[in-house]
C-alpha cells in the first residue's frame, strides 16, 4: 500500500450488498434474492480512473447505482469523503448529488426525448443551483465548448444528434454541476469505434482539466486498458481481482480474468493466440454456486474451490485476487 497511501481516498465502498427480492413462484419456497452485488469492498482515489469489468449481469451497474443510491443497497457502507452517504436523509442526499454524477450507456435512453439541450443543461444547473440564473446561458455555452458541440446545439432535441453527440450532451449535463466523481456506466459501449475514440479522449481531457475521479464501468477491455489507472474484475456479484492496470493486463492472476483477457478479439489477423474458451453459461445470481463462484466454469477448479469461498487477498504489491490456487496457475 505504499504507492497509493499518499493519495486521497475520495470514495470507500465497504462490504456493500445489493440483493433484489425475486417474486416467488410458490409460497412454499423460501424468499429468494438476486444477489447482484454480494459483499464487495474497494476504494477510489481522487483523480484516478478505476474500471470495473466483468460479464454482463455480474453486478457492475448495480454497484454504480448503489453508490449513487439510485437503488437503496441492502447492506454496507459507502463513504464519500469519509461520510456514509447511505445514511443521509433525502435532502442532504440531494445536495450531495452534485458531487457524484453518472454517464449512462445508452446515449438515447439517458436523455429525455422531449427536452431540448438547453433545457437539459439548465435543469441540471437549476436543480443543484450551482450557477445563478443570469449566468447560466454563458455556462451552457462553456459546457458545450468542453464537450465539443456547436453552440446552436442548445436549441435541438436529443434525437437530432448522432449517438456520439448525444453522449457528449450526457457528459455536459454531468459536468454542469461541477462533480468530483463521475460514474461512467458503459459510457462508450454503444458507440462506434471512431466516435468511441472521440469520447474517450474527451473524458481523459476533462479528467485532467477538472481533476475528476472516474469509476469506469465497461466490459470492453481494450477501452478499459486505455483509460484506467486501476482495474477491478467482478464475477457474479463478487470482486475477483483488483490491480493496477499494467499489472492486471500483463499478469492476470485469476483464471476468470485470464479467460476474459484472452477472449478479446484482437484486430490483427496475423496474431494467432491460445485462447481460453470457457465452457457453459454464467450461473444464475439467484442461486449462485457455493464456494468459489467461478468453480463451475473454471478449468482449474479443485475440490476446495467448491467448498470454500476464497478471500480477496493481496498476492503481489497492490494486486488483490480472490482465488485459492492463484499462485499455482500457469501463466
Amino acid at each position, binding site marked *: 500500500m505504499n504507492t497509493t497511501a499518499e493519495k486521497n481516498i475520495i470514495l470507500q465502498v465497504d462490504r456493500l450488498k445489493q440483493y433484489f427480492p425475486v417474486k416467488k413462484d410458490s409460497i412454499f419456497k423460501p424468499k429468494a434474492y438476486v444477489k447482484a452485488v454480494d459483499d464487495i469492498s474497494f476504494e477510489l482515489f481522487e483523480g484516478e480512473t478505476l474500471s470495473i469489468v466483468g460479464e454482463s449481469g455480474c453486478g457492475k451497474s448495480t454497484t454504480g447505482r448503489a453508490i449513487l443510491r439510485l437503488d437503496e443497497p441492502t447492506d454496507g457502507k459507502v463513504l464519500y469523503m469519509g461520510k456514509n452517504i447511505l445514511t443521509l436523509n433525502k435532502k442532504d442526499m*440531494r445536495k450531495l448529488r452534485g458531487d457524484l454524477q453518472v454517464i449512462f450507456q445508452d446515449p438515447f435512453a439517458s436523455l*429525455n*426525448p*422531449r427536452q431540448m439541450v438547453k433545457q437539459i443543461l439548465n435543469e441540471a444547473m437549476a*436543480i443543484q443551483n450551482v450557477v445563478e440564473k443570469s449566468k447560466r446561458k454563458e455556462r451552457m455555452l462553456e459546457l458545450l465548448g468542453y464537450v*465539443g458541440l*456547436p453552440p446552436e446545439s442548445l436549441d*435541438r*432535441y436529443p*434525437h437530432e444528434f448522432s449517438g456520439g453527440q448525444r453522449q457528449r450532451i450526457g457528459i455536459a449535463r454531468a459536468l454542469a454541476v461541477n462533480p468530483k466523481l463521475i460514474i461512467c456506466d458503459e459510457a462508450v459501449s454503444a458507440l462506434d469505434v471512431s466516435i468511441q475514440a472521440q469520447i474517450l479522449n474527451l473524458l481523459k481531457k476533462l479528467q485532467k482539466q477538472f481533476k475528476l475521479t472516474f469509476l469506469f464501468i465497461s466490459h470492453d477491455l481494450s477501452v478499459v486498458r486505455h483509460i484506467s489507472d486501476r482495474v477491478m474484475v467482478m464475477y457474479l456479484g463478487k470482486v475477483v481481482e483488483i490491480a493496477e492496470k499494467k499489472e492486471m493486463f500483463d499478469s492476470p492472476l485469476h483464471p476468470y480474468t485470464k479467460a476474459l483477457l484472452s477472449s478479446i478479439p484482437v484486430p490483427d489477423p496475423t496474431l494467432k493466440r491460445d485462447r481460453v474458451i470457457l465452457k457453459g453459461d454464467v450461473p444464475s445470481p439467484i442461486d449462485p454456486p457455493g464456494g468459489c463462484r467461478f468453480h463451475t466454469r473454471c478449468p482449474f477448479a479443485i475440490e476446495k474451490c467448491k467448498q470454500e469461498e476464497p478471500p480477496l487477498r493481496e498476492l503481489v504489491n497492490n494486486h488483490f485476487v480472490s482465488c485459492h490456487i492463484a499462485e499455482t496457475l500457469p501463466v
Partner: protein
Amino acid sequence: MTVQVKTEQPDIAVKTLIGGTKESRIKDFISTLIQNKAALAGAIIIIVYLLMAAFAPLLAPYSPYEIDLENKLTPPSADHWMGTDDKGRDILSRILYGSRLSMGVGFAAVLFGAFFGIIFGLVAGFYGKWVDTIIMRMMDVMLAFPGILLALAIIAALGPSLINVTIAVGAFSVPLFARIVRGSTLEVKRLEYIDAIRSLGASDFVIIFKHIFPNILSPIIVQGTLRLATAILSAAGLSFLGLGAQPPSPEWGTMLSSGRDFLFSAPYIALFPGLAISILVLGFNIFGDGLRDAFDPRMKK
C-alpha cells in the same frame, strides 16, 4: 499526433435534417400534423365544431328553446333541416347551441378524470409498493362502484349543476386513467434518463411531472379521445337523474335519449344528435392519433 478533440463542424446532417430555430420547429410540428391526412381531417372537424359552438347564435335558424307544439315532430325539410323534436323545437338549432354544452361537459369531464387519474397513476406507478397498492385498490373500489350511485351522491353532496355533472362523469374515468398512467409510468420509470435526472438531485415532483409525465402522453391522448364519447353520453344519463343539464338545455346526450321514444316514428330526433357526437368523437380520435405522432419527437426519425 496533433489530432485534437475539436469543436465539431456544424453538422451538415443535423442542420439539413432539422432546422435549428424555434419557428421552424413549430412549423415542423404543424407540417407533421398537416402531412398526416387523418390528423388534418380530425383537426378540421374539431375546428368546425368549435366554430359551431362559437357562432351558434348566428348560425341557428331558430331559437333552441322556443316550444311550438303545433309543429312538433316534423321530419327534416327545407324549413327545418333536421326536423323538429317532440316539442316542435328546431333540432338543428338545438344541436348548434348544444355544442357548447356537450363539448364543454365532455372536455371538462375528460380533463377532470384525466387530471386526477394521471396524478393517482403517476404517484402509484412512481412510488410503487404500498402507495401503489393503496391507490390502485382505491381505484378498484371506484371501478366496481355503480355509476348511478356515485352520481346520486354527488347531487346530494354538491347539488345539481352542470359543473357537478362534469365532476360525476369525470369521476367515472379517474380509475381508467389511473390504470393506464400507472402502467406507462412503470415503463418509463425504468429508463435511464430518469436515473440521470435523479442522480442530479431532482426532487420526486420534478421527476414525476417534468420527466415522466410528458413521456406517457400518448396512451393518455388515446384514452382521452375515446372517453370523450362516453363522457358526453353519460352526462346525458345523469341529466335524467336531475344532475346534469336541466331541460330545456339542448344537450346532445339528452336530446339523443329523448329520441328514444321516437326511435321508429321519428328516427331523426335521435339520429342527428347521435351523429353530432359520433363525428366529434371521430374527429378527436384521428386528431389525437396525429397529435400523438406529432408531439413525439422520436416519431420523426
